[in-house]
């Protein structure tokens, strides 16, 4: 048996990307295949969040080691004009379904002793049948396996890093705390009214 392909779902990519440890996927020196729907999920990001740029940089750095794989569900999604796509709700579990579709195309062509790893977090993946040559591994199991293989000193430390790494996203002005007023614990209305750019509401 030999590990030939790593197929990560969006969850593990986002968790590892969040702590800048996407390099852990590179350790196996084998192709990392990302389905089109998974790529779409991780690259769209949230406005203002650093997520998409982290993955774009990783894709560029790894060159052809990382390949985006077309799937039926991904091609159908892309066939929808972009302006309409933005208004549509996505199909539930689309990323996972695209991995399952891809696994169906390779399950009969993989050599008897070749194996692939599917990395996942979404519970939907647990119920999917990827065939006999594809092992499913959650992000946490992946970290535990890397710890036992001596690649990382501690899975728990990386998990702690994930918890410590909140994303810093520019807040909507209405989400921001009110300015503090010197020496007093004002409520938000007083703080808001005291902003220098506020017009005097009294007639």
């Amino acid at each position, binding site marked *: 048996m*030999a590990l030939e392909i790593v197929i990560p779902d969006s*969850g593990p990519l986002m*968790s590892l990307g969040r702590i800048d440890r996407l390099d852990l996927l590179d350790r196996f020196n*084998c192709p990392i295949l990302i389905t089109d729907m998974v790529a779409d999920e991780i690259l769209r990001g949230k406005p203002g969040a650093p997520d998409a740029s982290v993955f774009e940089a990783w894709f560029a750095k790894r060159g052809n080691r990382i390949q985006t794989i077309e799937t039926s569900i991904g091609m159908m999604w892309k066939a929808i004009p972009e302006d309409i796509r933005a208004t549509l709700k996505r199909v539930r579990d689309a990323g996972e379904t695209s991995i399952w579709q891809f696994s169906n195309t390779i399950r009969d062509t993989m050599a008897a002793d070749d194996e692939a790893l599917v990395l996942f977090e979404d519970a939907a993946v647990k119920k999917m049948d990827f065939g006999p040559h594809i092992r499913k591994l959650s*992000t946490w*199991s992946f970290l535990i396996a890397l710890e036992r293989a001596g690649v990382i000193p501690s899975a728990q430390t990386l998990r702690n890093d994930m918890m410590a790494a909140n994303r810093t*996203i520019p807040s909507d002005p209405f989400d921001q705390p009110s300015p503090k007023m010197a020496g007093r614990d004002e409520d938000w209305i007083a703080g808001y009214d005291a902003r220098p750019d506020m017009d005097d509401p009294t007639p």
Partner: protein
Amino acid sequence: MGRSEKGSSIRPIHGMVTVRQILDGFLAGSVTDHEAMDALHMETYADLINALADIGEAPPLPPKAEVEAEVEAALPLIRKRLQEVADGA
């Protein structure tokens, strides 16, 4: 107590009002990923992961027996591949 996620019985999520309650419920295991995604109008699991990241939380850990089964199946592959990489294969 509820009987199933899709049944008519009351689930913990039905008493939750705020985003934080729902995310905490997901982390505690009382709310499923799909329940949380539906309640928060999220389209993908990636959105849920991002919401957890925004509040400084990692996704919940899977059960230990499940982790051990996955690791047992994958570790020989990983060790062998790492050895091949070290040997320059």
